[in-house]
């Protein structure tokens, strides 16, 4: 019985890899089989190409490019060729599913199958439908629903795979090394796990109820911490700025909100709708206090979302800004560019170290505040 359980656990990473292959193989196959239909709409769109070949360094554009999501994972640019990993594009429009590789778009220059990657204007970066000529976007049509595996989604898969590999191997070594001292990866992660249990969960939620919330708190802490750290790594598979995507932080804050609401006991809801000790004229006829309390219930997860998003994105913008100082000065004169390099590198290293601290602190603060909200919601009141 126990042996089969461990066999399943050890199969999990293999299962995940197999699932990824099953997912991507048909996509690659469909991308190839779509070749015959390409001939009708490969009208080259020249305008998006002109800015790339102009050569002038645009700091704002470079920074924005590194912060936002994209349909391909750009690795390097050597001369005029850019090396990037094209990611699958999955669109749902007019009741049909379109799946193809984003290399068909040729960095926004060509349209494919009636879709085009918009490179400027209000839909910049999004996929729009094009009219029959293959160039002009169809203004009247709604945007197709985009389920693509974009850079952020790919980074999410990579970090989830990494988390599973690390923690499944740690749990297996705990089972194998019962009554022994921790060894290897265990001893790296154990202080963090105990820190979350003893300094975040137990004081905030209380001795009796903290075990119920430990899985969620541990998951959220390590997920945010690992993704923050991966965002600081400048090369593949890091550097995708996942926790700087407000949709991702919104989902994390939504989890906290849902768990808080579901773990609220009668005293918690009573304090929101009909707070004891508040004069009656604040609750009837215009329920001022309940409105303020309900706004408070929604604001707390919202603040969690914005805090994580803004901290991580601002840190990346600052580091990228320091690095682009070199190129901005280099545009004015080579000598200036060379002389500002040590200053810029020094600042970038300093900001990088600060970002490491911020990566840990933001994960800690998110987990701590979630634990505090859970504790407040499920607290037995001794009036």
């Amino acid at each position: 019985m126990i042996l089969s359980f461990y066999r399943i656990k050890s199969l999990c990473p293999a299962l995940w890899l197999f699932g990824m292959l099953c997912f991507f193989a048909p996509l690659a196959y469909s991308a190839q089989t779509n070749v015959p239909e390409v001939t009708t709409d490969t009208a080259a769109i020249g305008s998006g190409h002109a800015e790339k070949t102009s050569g002038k360094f645009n700091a704002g554009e470079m920074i924005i490019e590194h912060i936002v999501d994209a349909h391909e994972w750009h690795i390097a640019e050597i001369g005029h060729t850019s090396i990037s990993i094209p990611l699958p594009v999955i669109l749902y429009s007019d009741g049909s599913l379109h799946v193809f590789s984003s290399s068909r778009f040729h960095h926004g220059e060509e349209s494919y199958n009636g879709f085009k990657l918009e490179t400027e204007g209000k839909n910049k970066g999004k996929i729009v439908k094009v009219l029959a000529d293959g160039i002009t976007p169809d203004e009247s049509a709604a945007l197709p629903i985009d389920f693509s595996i974009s850079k952020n989604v790919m980074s999410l898969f990579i970090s989830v795979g990494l988390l599973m590999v690390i923690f499944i191997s740690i749990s297996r070594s705990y089972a194998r090394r019962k009554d022994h001292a921790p060894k290897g990866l265990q001893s790296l992660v154990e202080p963090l796990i105990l820190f979350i249990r003893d300094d975040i969960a137990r004081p905030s939620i209380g001795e009796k109820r903290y075990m119920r919330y430990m899985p969620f708190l541990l998951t959220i802490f390590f997920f945010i911490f690992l993704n923050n750290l991966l965002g600081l790594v400048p090369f593949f598979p890091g550097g995708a700025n996942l926790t700087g995507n407000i949709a991702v932080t919104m989902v994390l804050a939504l989890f906290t909100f849902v768990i808080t609401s579901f773990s609220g006991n009668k005293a918690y809801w009573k304090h929101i709708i009909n707070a004891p000790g508040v004069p009656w004229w604040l609750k009837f006829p215009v329920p001022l206090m309940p409105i303020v309390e309900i706004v408070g219930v929604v604001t707390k997860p919202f603040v969690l979302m914005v805090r994580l998003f803004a901290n991580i994105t601002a840190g990346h913008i600052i580091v990228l800004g320091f690095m682009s100082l070199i190129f901005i000065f280099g545009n004015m004169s080579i000598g200036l560019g060379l002389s500002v390099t040590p200053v810029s590198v020094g600042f970038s290293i300093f900001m990088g170290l600060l970002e490491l601290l911020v990566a840990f602190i933001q994960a800690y603060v998110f987990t701590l505040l979630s634990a505090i909200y859970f504790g407040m919601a499920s607290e037995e009141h001794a009036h």
Partner: protein
Amino acid sequence: MSVLSLLLQAATDLAPVAKMGAGIGAGIAAIGAGIGIGQIGKGAVESIARQPESVGDIRSNMIVAAALIEGVAFFAIVVCLLILFL
């Protein structure tokens, strides 16, 4: 006359004024964060001086409070960035 024409220009072409507003807003947010975190630091350092054995507790509370205040400052930064880029 030049004042009036300047006002007319400001009234009709407000995009640069909006960017200036965003810059000033970000600066004021930085001032607010600086004052707030400075007061946290002052309180923390003074209480460490009064009771040196509780350094660990004070340090963690200081960091938590600083992160919360930075969160509020980042709200203002996000609004200014929205003005600049939307």
